[in-house]
């Protein structure tokens, strides 16, 4: 044994350091113990967050990544540890979140023998990762880790799983690390086609009623400024997908709100009135488009994306601008003529007014004693000067968070979009606060969703993480109840919930909190909650049968907006 040799586990730590890893979310177990042993020596260089369930580790890594733009890192053991990360990995895949997950695996000689805690992790994760690879010897570690970070980060980001056999963690090897900068079979960012750029610019230049639909691709490409420059130069009104929220300030005059099922009235109506639809870094999800057969048929469609597989997947593009959004938007903007579309832009106003009068006004300032979700979200947003990070769980709380939280800076919305994973919120908020320690992080969750990962209160206790947890307690699985009311004859099949005393649960974890049920109590509790940077749990007893409106029923025309 030569002096310079180190174990595979130490190599993994050094590789992490070389990739700039500062935070690891994880949970130990038999098949990953050598890695944890190595971590013991590196604890002053990298912060390890011990979660309470591996699903929590992945969601926390997602929250961390969303607010920082960095690649989230997760460590788990084999078998049940690995299968517990699956939900989060699938979530990161569909929401394009860069992440590297290292799972322990049985020693290579025991593979395929149904050994203790052996699972075919590569087989399970292949369809839900960008790349999934089994490392069977220590010598492969630097190569595989370098590749993993490169793949997770470059192009359209996503999760990578490394399945690390125990022998590879223990074996000795000569460590030499070279970051990956090239994989011949992987072209992360398609080159920009100048002709296409001119075609796109020409289309926009002759548009009378252009409309931009903005997705997370703008945030992932750090293209917020470029986008703003484009919208302002040609005076293009814009609307946002759920994951595109916060890329532009809520109160910008060209920001017309959110798209889709629970989006803003005018945005959905105008989709079928615009003459040029400019989709940027979004993938025409069915929650955005509703019925494709009648979607934006009158418009010429320009689709900006980094992922060629998104082009023509759901909506046929007349012009497909492939490439990194930061570069493509800038290139097109250069060829745009300054324009005004005053009448078109102000045509959104009448819809905004109808929506305000019929939905928003009562939601944020109720005339009845019951507290409403929109009211809570709007007041919390206000109390943080609209500067906080909004994390949501899934359900009504999520749609209300998206509708009523206001954003003044980018990377401020953390939510599970494509997968709609209940239980995402609490761990994602923890990760977001770790990633952005100087910002206020507000989590809005339902009484259902918080109980899917409520054990992560233990992580908050141990790591002293100052997240603001707002439990919007309607004693129902609210969103499912809403559908039962609207589409299933009010047959409330297994959606009411008997809940624990959430404040007492929080107290047990050393977290301060309050339960409120009147408008005045709410105001006081919010003020108390934001008065310092400590964790806080605010349970709000809200109206039991609130509805998220407007709503476009699944599969209806996108213009079939129901306001009641």
């Amino acid at each position, binding site marked *: 044994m030569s002096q310079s040799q180190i174990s595979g586990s130490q190599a993994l730590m050094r590789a992490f350091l070389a990739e700039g890893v500062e935070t690891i979310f994880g949970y130990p177990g038999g098949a990953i113990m050598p890695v944890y042993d190595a971590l013991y020596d590196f604890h002053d260089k990298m912060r390890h967050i011990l979660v309470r369930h591996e699903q929590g580790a992945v969601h926390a890594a997602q929250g961390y990544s969303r607010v920082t733009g960095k690649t989230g890192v997760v460590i788990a053991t084999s078998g049940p540890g690995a299968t517990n990360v699956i939900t989060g990995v699938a979530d990161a895949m569909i929401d394009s979140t860069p992440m590297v997950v290292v799972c322990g695996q049985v020693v290579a000689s025991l593979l395929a023998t149904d050994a203790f805690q052996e699972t075919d992790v590569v087989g399970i994760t292949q*369809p839900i990762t960008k*790349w999934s690879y089994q490392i069977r010897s220590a010598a492969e570690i630097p190569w595989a880790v370098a590749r993993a970070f490169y793949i997770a980060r470059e192009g359209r980001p996503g999760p990578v799983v490394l399945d690390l056999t125990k022998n590879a963690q223990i074996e000795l090897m000569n460590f030499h690390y070279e970051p990956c900068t090239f*994989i011949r*079979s992987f072209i992360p960012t398609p080159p920009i086609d100048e002709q296409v750029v001119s075609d796109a610019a020409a289309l926009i230049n002759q548009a009378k009623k252009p409309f931009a639909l903005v997705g997370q691709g703008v945030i992932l490409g750090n293209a917020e400024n470029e986008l703003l420059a484009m919208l302002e130069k040609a005076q293009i009104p814009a609307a946002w997908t759920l994951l595109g929220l916060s890329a532009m300030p809520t109160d910008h005059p060209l920001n017309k709100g959110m798209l889709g099922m629970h989006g803003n009235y005018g945005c959905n109506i105008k989709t079928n009135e615009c003459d040029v639809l400019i989709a940027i870094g979004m993938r025409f999800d069915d929650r955005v488009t509703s019925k494709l057969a009648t979607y934006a048929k009158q418009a010429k469609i320009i689709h900006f994306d980094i992922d060629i*597989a998104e082009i023509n997947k759901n909506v046929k593009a007349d012009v497909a601008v492939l490439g990194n959004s930061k570069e493509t938007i800038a290139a097109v903007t250069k060829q745009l003529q300054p324009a005004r579309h005053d009448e078109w832009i102000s045509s959104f106003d009448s819809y905004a007014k109808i929506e305000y009068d019929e939905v928003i006004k009562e939601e944020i300032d109720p005339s009845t004693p019951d507290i409403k979700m929109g009211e809570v979200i709007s007041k919390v947003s206000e109390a943080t000067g609209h500067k906080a990070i909004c994390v949501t769980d899934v359900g009504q709380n999520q749609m209300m968070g998206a509708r009523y939280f206001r954003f003044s800076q980018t990377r401020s919305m953390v939510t599970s979009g494509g997968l709609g994973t209940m239980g995402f919120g609490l761990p994602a908020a923890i990760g977001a606060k770790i990633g952005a320690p100087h910002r206020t992080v507000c989590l809005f969750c339902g009484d259902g969703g918080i109980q899917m990962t409520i054990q992560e209160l233990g992580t908050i206790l141990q790591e002293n993480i100052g997240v603001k947890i707002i439990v919007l307690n309607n004693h129902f699985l609210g969103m499912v109840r809403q559908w039962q009311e609207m589409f299933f004859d009010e047959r409330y099949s297994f959606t009411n919930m008997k809940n624990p005393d959430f404040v007492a649960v929080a107290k047990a974890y050393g977290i301060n909190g309050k339960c409120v049920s009147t408008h005045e109590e709410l105001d006081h509790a919010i003020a108390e909650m934001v008065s310092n940077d400590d964790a806080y749990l605010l349970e709000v007893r809200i109206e039991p049968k609130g509805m998220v409106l407007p709503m476009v029923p699944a599969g209806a025309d996108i213009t079939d907006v129901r306001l009641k």
Partner: protein
Amino acid sequence: MEKTLYTVIVFSENRPGLLNQVSIIFSRRQLNIESLTVSASSIEGVHKFTITVYTDEEEIDKVVKQIEKRIDVLKAYYYTDDEVIYQEVALYKVDTESILESDEIEQLVRKYNARFLEITRTFSVIEMTGHTDEIKELYYALDKFGVKQYVRSGRIAITKSTSELLSKFLSDREEEAKG
């Protein structure tokens, strides 16, 4: 939409698990793979998949993009029958006795450009290369005499274009790697 038989050709790095990655892209869309041939390609270290599937152009275009998106896939293409030269190989086992009884089998073998691969005292094996329908035709013709075993391979195909697309891709990538 009209369904056509497409030939999908995939070039990948030689890494384990790729067959699974490619095949789940078809199964997720409930596309039945008609035939599948996997082997080393003429380029060292590069594997080649030849897959045939009935579908429409819109779908095959999406499938091929999804295949190409897999990290270890180098390139994926799809073709219609008029764009490729393709063959399958089939083996038929018949009793040697029925060959000896008349010369009809021998005539069939000649007519279809097939050949005797092996003749033993009890059984004989006929081999034929060709397109699916010809291969099936021969089967039905031979079956009058009793075919004991019959097997048909997946399709292999080469394109009619003069330049090899993958070689160009690889040399371009090599240039880029050098910066």
